């Protein structure tokens, strides 16, 4: 299977690999997928007081397309407000990386991961403010 240059680049030089302290109130963590299905993504965002994503980190178990999708989305969400970040569609990721049809689920997983991270951040902060 021939992969696009963008995909190979993200696979070979993934951006924003790492972990943040998931107990920190500024950090939202999304863990999606399942080992039995062959992919698991952990995506974390660090959000400042004005609701802007200052930093994003990921770790992914999965095929090259899954790694590239998660690497790409961390780049895209950085500097965005959380509400903007939650608007990112999997189709944009799939298009940017030229994912083959059997790999579309990787982009869906990346979209799920950012949504889960935002949800986690919001849940934490609702509790903190009340």
């Amino acid at each position: 299977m021939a992969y696009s240059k963008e995909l190979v680049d993200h696979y070979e030089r993934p951006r924003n690999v790492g972990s943040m302290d998931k107990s920190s109130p500024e950090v939202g963590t999304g863990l999606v997928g399942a080992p039995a299905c062959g992919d698991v993504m952990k995506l974390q965002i660090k959000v400042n007081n004005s609701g802007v994503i200052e930093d994003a980190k990921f770790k992914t178990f999965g095929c090259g397309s899954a790694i590239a999708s998660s690497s790409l989305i961390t780049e895209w969400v950085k500097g965005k407000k959380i509400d903007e970040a939650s608007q990112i569609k999997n189709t944009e990721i799939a298009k940017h990386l030229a994912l083959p049809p059997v790999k579309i689920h990787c982009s869906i997983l990346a979209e799920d991961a950012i949504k889960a991270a935002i949800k986690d951040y919001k849940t934490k902060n609702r509790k903190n403010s009340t």
Partner: protein
Amino acid sequence: MNKNMNLKDNIYLDYQATTPLDPRVLDEMLPYFNERFGNPHSRNHKYGWEAEESIEIAREQVAKIINANPKEVIFTSGATESNNIAIKGIADFYKSNKNHIITCVTEHKCVLESCRHLSNNGFEITYLPVNQDGLIDLKKLEDSITEKTLLVSIMAVHNEIGVIQPLKEIGQICRKNNVFFHSDCAQAVGKIKLDVEEMNIDLMSISGHKIYAPKGIGALYVRRKPRVRIKPMMSGGGQERGMRSGTLSPALCVGLGAACKICYDEMQKENNRLSKLRDMFYNGITKECKDVYLNGSSEHRIPGNLNLSFAYVEGESLMMGIKDLSVSSGSACTSASLEPSYVLRALGVEEELAHTSLRIGLGRFTTEEHVKKAVKDIVGEVNRLRSLSPLWEMAQEGVDISKIEWAHH
């Protein structure tokens, strides 16, 4: 993909998928593409006689490596055809008396599909499970035999995990119970000693391209004493003792014969060489990476195969990273099904571990330098991907991954 892709720097480690043609085999074949073009079934002239003689020499060479009589060997297009003729042909001939076949869940698809075809046509099929080491349980085999059992079909060496089934013991059970024994020996010929007499094998499938002969040629051994009858699948001129019509290709038959002769002459030496390379490979990897598991029996296996699970690293991404190596992924993730190997699942390998597997095949043209480079590349890539893997991170923190409630999608 670029057709001019340079293969020179790529190390081939997929010898269970296919093997390159041995140049010595090609040399034997070439004249039959040129001046020796005769039809081996022409009885009236020299061209025909010469072609026929070359085929009979090849038949002897094939027979010798399995200790058969040359008259018991028929040429086919390959092991898939041989398996089809053997299983469907014997079923078709004896179906009025017996309608039960025993095979195994980890057999090659062409055996399983042939059995499935028969099960749609009035046959009962028993699919034996395998133990964790990939071997069948002989007690279960014996218990499955009924008075309606016609055939037991068990492969000799497994194409994915390289394990060797106890052929002699299976043969004894079959003979004792008056049941025919077919074995798919595509991956076994030239790698382990095969003896149709000692092993009581009645039908044996042989493949050319797994033993450095070309693709498109194989053979089927059909026992004459006591005689095994099969109904042919193709109608035609009645070549190959009426079991497989169609003009034979002398070039291909000569290639298979020459390949068998080389394997026969060099097997012991080659197995010793491959065992050393295999150990070097396995030790090289396990010394540098923990949580690497060998699939299939470590004792009963051919030296040219390693099937390894690299926990916490997905197999397809690993293959993408080791781009100078041609290996096969244990999982079929490139297909839309995203199902891991049915063979590894049958061994009881957890689904998450089955997704992390590679099949590494070593063979005649594998060198120590290849192994060193491959070990270096695999170790480097496994470590890199583990540093990206959330599962590896959790495992290092002591989290039990199996206890997490994953959202299956």
